[in-house]
């Protein structure tokens, strides 16, 4: 029950995920485990709709927006050391250095992180995690994977979650229930912040599972390539789900369209 025990367990989970990564490389397509993933996705959706969302609604009702933002800032700041570590592991020395100062500033002037003074001063932070670090080292995504509670991921990013958890310093100093409570609070608070957006996306999507998968994979690819931060990473191949060519060009095809007006009858 103590920190170390659960930590070992987490390491074991990370280990088996690594094994899966090896296994995953052989399979084809971005989502070879779709049937299983859909099952887990349905479970998460149910858990969200019956448990998390209702509680988050109450939370949202009780807690004013500025308090939610403050808490959000606090948890983000709490995660900074691990992000800084990842900056350095990715070879981004300057980023790591700036991130460190950011953390120190927010932890002090920002009242333990509740106020994001650094951002107010126009000093942006870019999220990092070990999944991205593995990506910069050239480790492929492996298959898409839906985790219980954690949601959308890939085999690589799952390993990243495990490693980041082990690397989080606080876990070694506080009892496990504090860590769990903190994580749960963070999750709840985040969920409360996005109540409307999630409800709307669910309603609008033609297939919410596919919507989430597509958004997750594309967002991760963009973060990995550095396009979101304006500092393209050298030598990182964007593992985009589609090539740019596939996505945007149908030139040859366009020409045909003009003549093909009266096609074979549609079904």
């Amino acid at each position, binding site marked *: 029950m103590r920190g170390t025990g659960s930590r070992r367990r987490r390491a074991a989970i990370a280990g088996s995920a690594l094994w899966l990564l090896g296994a995953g490389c052989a399979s084809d397509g971005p989502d070879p485990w779709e049937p299983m993933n859909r099952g887990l996705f349905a479970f998460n959706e149910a858990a969200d709709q019956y448990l998390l969302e209702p509680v988050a609604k109450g939370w949202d009702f009780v807690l004013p927006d500025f308090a939610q933002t403050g808490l959000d800032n606090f948890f*983000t700041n709490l995660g900074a050391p691990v992000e800084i570590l990842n900056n350095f592991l990715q070879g981004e020395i300057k980023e790591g250095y700036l991130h460190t100062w950011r953390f120190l500033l927010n932890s002090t002037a920002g009242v333990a992180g509740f106020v994001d003074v650094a951002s107010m001063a126009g000093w942006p932070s870019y999220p990092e995690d070990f999944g991205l670090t593995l990506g910069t080292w050239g480790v492929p995504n492996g298959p898409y994977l839906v985790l219980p509670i954690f949601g959308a991921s890939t085999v690589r990013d799952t390993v990243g979650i495990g490693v980041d958890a082990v690397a989080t310093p606080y876990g070694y100093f506080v009892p496990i229930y504090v860590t769990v409570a903190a994580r749960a609070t963070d999750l709840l608070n*985040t969920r409360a912040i996005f109540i409307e957006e999630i409800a709307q996306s669910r309603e609008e999507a033609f297939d919410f599972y596919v919507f989430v998968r597509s958004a997750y994979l594309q*967002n991760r690819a963009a973060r990995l390539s550095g396009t979101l931060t304006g500092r393209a990473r050298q030598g990182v191949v964007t593992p985009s789900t589609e090539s740019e060519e596939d996505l945007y060009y149908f030139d040859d095809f366009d020409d045909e369209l003009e003549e093909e007006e009266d096609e074979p009858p*549609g079904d």
Partner: protein
Amino acid sequence: MERASKGNGDPGNGGTDRSVVRFAQVGCLLAALLVPPGAAQAADAPANSAREVVEEALSQVIEILNESGSSEDSRRDRIADIAYARFDFDTMSKLVIARPWRKFTKEQRSDFIAEFKTHLARSYGRRLSRYEGVNVKVTSEVKEQRGDVTVNSQVVGGQFDGAVMSYRMRGKTGQWLVIDVIIEGVSLVSNFRSQFKPIVAQGGADELLSRLKDKNDVLRAEIEEDESVTTPVSDGSGS
């Protein structure tokens, strides 16, 4: 900046939620913004660069978004007009459907273009109050290999502070039109394509069209409901 940029601050909880949500939320906002490229004014000025087109449209949309006093309904309509003038819905539709487009009849194609346009307007035009206090600054312009230009922008202020939005522009008949909007790295075209592909593969164009129409009806009902909640007496909305 923080909220928008910290997608995975906490690797444990809510991280994944957040990136997706960000797309969704930003999606909305960007949709509104996304909606923006161009606009009537831009059309008058010949030979605008892609970046200028986006900048101009964005500033018009933002002005409307931050306007207080006029009804949400009227603001939405005006934003839609701006978007309609600068989005190339024909090309977007083609890209979203991709290969199966060949098998669509002429009628199915025009139906799809019309419904898809309606879908974008309805899904992105909802609850404009979310974008209060939002500004967007164009950050860079990137020439793509085959002539397209990607205009990058970032949201400043408001709920989606820091979110990165890009417009993929294609020059057509002397003007730049938007063919895709990419929010936090998530391409709208690609996202819709992945959702539509299995529907078309299984049920063909007709199935997709009927699903799209149904969805649009649902959205219209939702918008009316939102409206009745937010603006008790909406001036001449409805029909």
